[in-house]
């Protein structure tokens, strides 16, 4: 059980780290604000999702596991909302210039 759990952890956390890398590279390399936003909010939340998935087998209790999942859901909600808000203000040429 714990052996299989460890394999899941290593695979998932590695995948999560890869998506964080992808998001960061996108943030640094993409040409304009909207594409950078696209790279960041999608890849990062996927990365966090994989990290959470990887840590689930290590969670001590059911409550800890539920907390981990709710953290991911909150982060997803935050990412989705913020990307909308920033994209809108960037497009209107408001405070984002």
């Amino acid at each position, binding site marked *: 059980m714990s052996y299989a759990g460890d394999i899941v952890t290593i695979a998932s956390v590695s995948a999560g780290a890869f998506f964080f890398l992808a998001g960061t590279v996108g943030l640094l390399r993409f040409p304009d604000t909207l594409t950078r936003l696209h790279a960041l909010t999608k890849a990062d939340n996927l990365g966090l999702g994989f990290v959470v998935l990887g840590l689930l087998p290590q969670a001590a209790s059911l409550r800890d596991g539920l907390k981990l999942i*709710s953290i991911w859901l*909150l982060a997803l*909600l935050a990412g989705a*909302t913020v990307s*909308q*808000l920033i994209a809108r203000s960037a497009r209107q040429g408001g*405070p984002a210039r």
Partner: protein
Amino acid sequence: MSITTVFESVLAALVLGLALWTIAVRETYSATVGFVAYGLMVALIWVGLDAIDVALTEAAIGGGLGGIVLLGAAARLRDTESTAAETPNRMVRLGAAALSAAIAAALAIAILLLPDAAPTLAPAAVANAAATGLANPVTNVLMAFRGMDTALEKVVLLLAIVGVWSLASDQAWGGRPGPHHEADPNGVLAFLARLLPPVGIVIGVYILWTGADHPGGAFQGGAVLASMWLLVIMAGLADTPPASSRRLRLVLVAGPGLFFLVGLGGLCFGAAFLAYPIAHAKPLILGIETAMLLTIAATLALLLAGAPERSVPR
């Protein structure tokens, strides 16, 4: 050198670099964003130092409320920045630099001169945890062993809100704090302001409740609740209450009021001011903390909303 040491050195270097950049950068706005990121990194360091209570406070204040205060200030300053061409002269700048360097040097000397095994009361606080029935030593110190300090801190919060309110102009005296927020009722922000607060209230109460035995407490929970209230206000779904509202003022004095009431009870029936009867220590402390949660949430949110700006039609 273990992998943990390398990791900690890298984290410290990152935070120091970010701090230097935040001071050096000329644009107010960039410095603000830098500072918000700095708060997040410092929360990581507190977790690394095993000071979870402090990390929780840093996350709630630095991640939520601090960002709103600083960005609001930056937005106000930005309107005046272009018109205010006046820069401080060389003497003022040199004086400020000398003063900052002196303070930094004094702090560094104080830290370097600490005796090697720093004097600590931590073992005593942990050893006497059974006296209150709470397992979190930080809550024990705040609410029982040094309860007087905490009670007076809440009075300071009250004084702060009185100070902010006294900045109101005569027309707006006793009126609603802050500008009125207009937002699209079907927009993204209004959606978030409907979805997030129920979750946030549960988390705020959870942080208070878990503070009895694990890291957490009234201040962190109150900061979370204050953020939720501000979110609803910023989305235009609710307005700030007028400063003259009696119910609001009752909430503002509830925390310190109950604290002093229990303290006087200790003076009358027990050994000393704020002496809890051993058998009822835990329910009394949790009761005070619940009242303080409401007070802290209301006070922090109103401090951020600012001075009354709009008069209430009578």
